[in-house]
């Protein structure tokens, strides 16, 4: 082992408003290792890699690269230091070609330099070939799928001769074949002496690839272990940091009649096909699956964002057509979306206005705003959900993530829905608020709501669900009882139950 690490974080801290995303994280990456970074959603992984790429400046702490302590790092100098990052959401130029995207990353930013178009194309073709991607260099990036764009990112890191490569869930949306190629590329990089920070939720990948593992929890590092000396159970325990079931509140009431039924529902544009499912009153149906399995897409179909083009949706036994969020709302559906800041709340608007936003029709007959009604309703929800805010007039942006999420939830409960779809309701939410949200979900179910809970947080799915629907490849792969164990759900999500299915 070489003595000087390629990259070291020393007690890095970073806050966003009231949210402390990183609380003194230390971490070290050596040459020639694949170092997995693990943690639940919201543990601080994304923030940490953004610090490493210079996209975020830390509030405190230091970055040490090749033994030299850096005062500051920006994206340009990060590149000079040989840091390359493959983001989950590729940061490419949609209007430009693949070759050009690669060139903009790889060529020195001298403005007066002549562009060698043929050379760029050759170089791009060669890089793409090395990672086994069958992409034409002249394709426009906007016409590429997400995994294809990720391949461009990987080619770019490879081309940059990066010594420190960060991969943020690179396999989330790759096909089996692409994944095999990717692993080869990762190993090639490692043998060439690069250090790879590898972020993934798939434990099997971690054990296959990683040399060491660092686990983050709630913005702090809980330890670095050698991957070979670690069992899966131990790893999960470190990530979750608590006994799994003790934290989740038990069901409060009985399960009633079927409220929502899907019969072979599909939507080509959303990549959802042949979904059949029932959700009953008072039931929490967990929807598990890997990123990209089609869970959020299914929610989009149900809520009319991408209306279904096949199959039948029944609400309370009656067949309904849902072609927009407005009709979904009218039918008593509510959807708390995954991207809270963009879709779930309007950050600039006050808490009270956010809470009433979806219930205008019932709260304000005739279209006249009634501030008394609004304040009263908002006050009730603030008290009932224990929303910590300076007042109903404070903008939602001033709240912490968990409290923003409670506002999003309140908005939809104000519509008195029959079916509540929750998409990653506790992502980026601190532990305390998480528990409160779980308690609320139980309460709502007990009042007869049918709850569809989408979550990538496996303990959450296991702890909260009465039944578990597992999605894979845009459809329901299996429906398991709520008492199912983690490996069963994982196996169904990965499609390894029958072995060989991809």
């Amino acid at each position: 082992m070489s003595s000087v690490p390629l990259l070291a974080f020393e007690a890095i801290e970073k806050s966003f408003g009231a949210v402390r995303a990183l609380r003194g994280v230390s971490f070290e990456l050596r040459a020639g290792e694949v170092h997995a970074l693990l943690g639940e959603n919201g543990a601080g992984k994304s923030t940490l890699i953004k610090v490493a790429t210079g996209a975020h400046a830390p509030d405190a702490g230091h970055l040490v690269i090749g033994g030299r302590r850096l005062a500051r790092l920006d994206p340009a100098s990060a590149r000079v230091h040989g840091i390359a990052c493959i983001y989950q959401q590729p940061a490419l130029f949609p209007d430009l070609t693949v070759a050009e995207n690669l060139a903009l990353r790889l060529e020195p930013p001298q403005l007066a330099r002549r562009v060698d178009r043929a050379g760029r194309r050759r170089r791009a073709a060669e890089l793409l070939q090395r990672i086994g991607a069958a992409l034409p260099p002249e394709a426009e990036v906007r016409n590429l799928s997400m995994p294809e764009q990720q391949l461009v990112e990987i080619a770019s890191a490879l081309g940059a001769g990066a010594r420190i490569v960060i991969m943020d869930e690179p396999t989330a949306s790759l096909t089996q074949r692409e994944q095999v190629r990717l692993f080869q590329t990762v190993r090639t990089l490692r043998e060439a002496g690069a250090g790879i920070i590898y972020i993934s939720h798939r434990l099997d990948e971690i054990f296959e690839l990683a040399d060491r593992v660092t686990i983050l929890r709630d913005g702090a590092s809980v330890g670095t272990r050698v991957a070979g000396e670690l069992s899966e159970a131990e790893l999960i325990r470190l990530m979750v940091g608590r006994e799994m079931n003790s934290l989740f509140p038990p069901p409060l009431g009985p399960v009633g009649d079927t409220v929502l039924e899907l019969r072979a529902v599909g939507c080509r544009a959303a990549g959802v096909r042949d979904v059949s499912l029932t959700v009953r009153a008072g039931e929490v149906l967990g929807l598990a699956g890997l990123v990209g399995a089609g869970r959020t897409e299914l929610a989009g179909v149900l809520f009319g964002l991408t209306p279904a083009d096949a199959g039948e949706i029944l609400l309370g036994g009656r067949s309904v057509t849902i072609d927009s969020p407005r009709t979904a709302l009218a039918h008593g559906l509510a959807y708390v979306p995954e991207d809270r800041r963009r879709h779930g709340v309007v950050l600039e608007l006050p808490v009270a206005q956010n809470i009433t936003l979806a219930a205008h029709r019932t709260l304000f007959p005739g279209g006249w705003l009634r501030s008394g009604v609004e304040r009263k309703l908002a006050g009730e929800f603030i008290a009932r959900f224990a929303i910590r805010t300076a007042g109903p007039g404070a903008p939602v942006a001033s709240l912490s993530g968990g409290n923003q999420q409670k506002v999003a939830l309140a908005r939809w409960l104000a519509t008195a829905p029959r079916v509540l779809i929750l998409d990653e309701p506790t992502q980026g939410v601190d532990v305390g608020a998480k528990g409160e949200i779980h308690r609320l979900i139980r309460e709502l179910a007990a009042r007869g709501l049918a709850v569809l809970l989408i979550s990538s947080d496996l303990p959450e799915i296991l702890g909260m669900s009465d039944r578990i629907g597992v999605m894979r490849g845009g459809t329901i792969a299996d429906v398991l009882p709520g008492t199912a164990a983690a490996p069963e759900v994982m196996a169904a999500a990965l499609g390894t139950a029958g072995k060989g299915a991809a």
Partner: protein
Amino acid sequence: MRRAGEFLRGALRRHEVLLLLVLVVEWGLFYHYGTTVNRRGVVVGFGTLDRQFDVLRHSCEIGLLALALTPVILTAGIDLSVGSLLGLCAVVFGQLWHDAGLPVGAAAGLTLVAGALGGAVNAGLVAGLRLPPLIVTLGTYSLFRGLAEALTRGAVTYTDFPAGFLFLGQERWLGLPTQAWVFLVAAAAIGVLVHRTVTGRAFRVLGFAPEGARYAGLAVGRTLAIAYVLAGTVAAAAALIYTARIGQAKADAGTGYELYAITAVVLGGTSIFGGRGSVPGTLLGVAAIAVLKNGLATIPAVIRLNAAEEMAGLLTGALLLLALALGALGQAGKVEG
């Protein structure tokens, strides 16, 4: 004591309050420097009621357009075509009355319908096809003005309107210039729409978070359409007032008004990115510009230079830049703090 200070600082951060201060200072300066006694011992200039009414009379058309644009800009849109639509509606009104021989009232009513139709063209393209409003209304900016020119063959001017119609633009009713009543009613109506109805709330939400509006089940298309159709209708009302004030209708009516109206709206604190802004702010913006323009025209030194209009324009532009820069610095401070 400290709470009073905090309150004051909070108030100062509000755009409307700052603008009101500017307006008061403007008014005081002009009252002091622009009011004189002429040789016959009569008070003339800024301090007279007549002059104040003049200010009001002359700010009605751009003021109406600014009111019309406030909801549009709140949705993070823009409408460059309102000035051209004013011209087209003036011509349409002239033709309906003069060529088609309709009674003035009917012609005026149909002109408002024509304005709404013009707005509906924008609405269809922006709300229906989701095209960028800047380019759509740049197109209708040319189209409406071009239609006005084509209808009049670039030459016809309609005049000799009946006194009953000219009353709207040149006389007083209940003590105020007649068109001021129209303006005040429009201001009140749009103020209520923006600040007291769910549609007004939807304008804002669209400006802040267009995707968020869809996820909240708001009627995105309908809300956008309301903003643009309303803008067209109000532009038609401005056309009627313009025609009544000038006493003639021709194709070049209202040329360049859209930019002054947008200036007034932005000066009034409405964010060009949408979401933030208020109708009282727009009224203050309109007033700040109108008082500046008319006030300068009462200062002897400026009269001698014959440069009131230009100086007013120059100061308006400078004021706008200042407001923007202060806003940007204030925003930066907020993010840091």
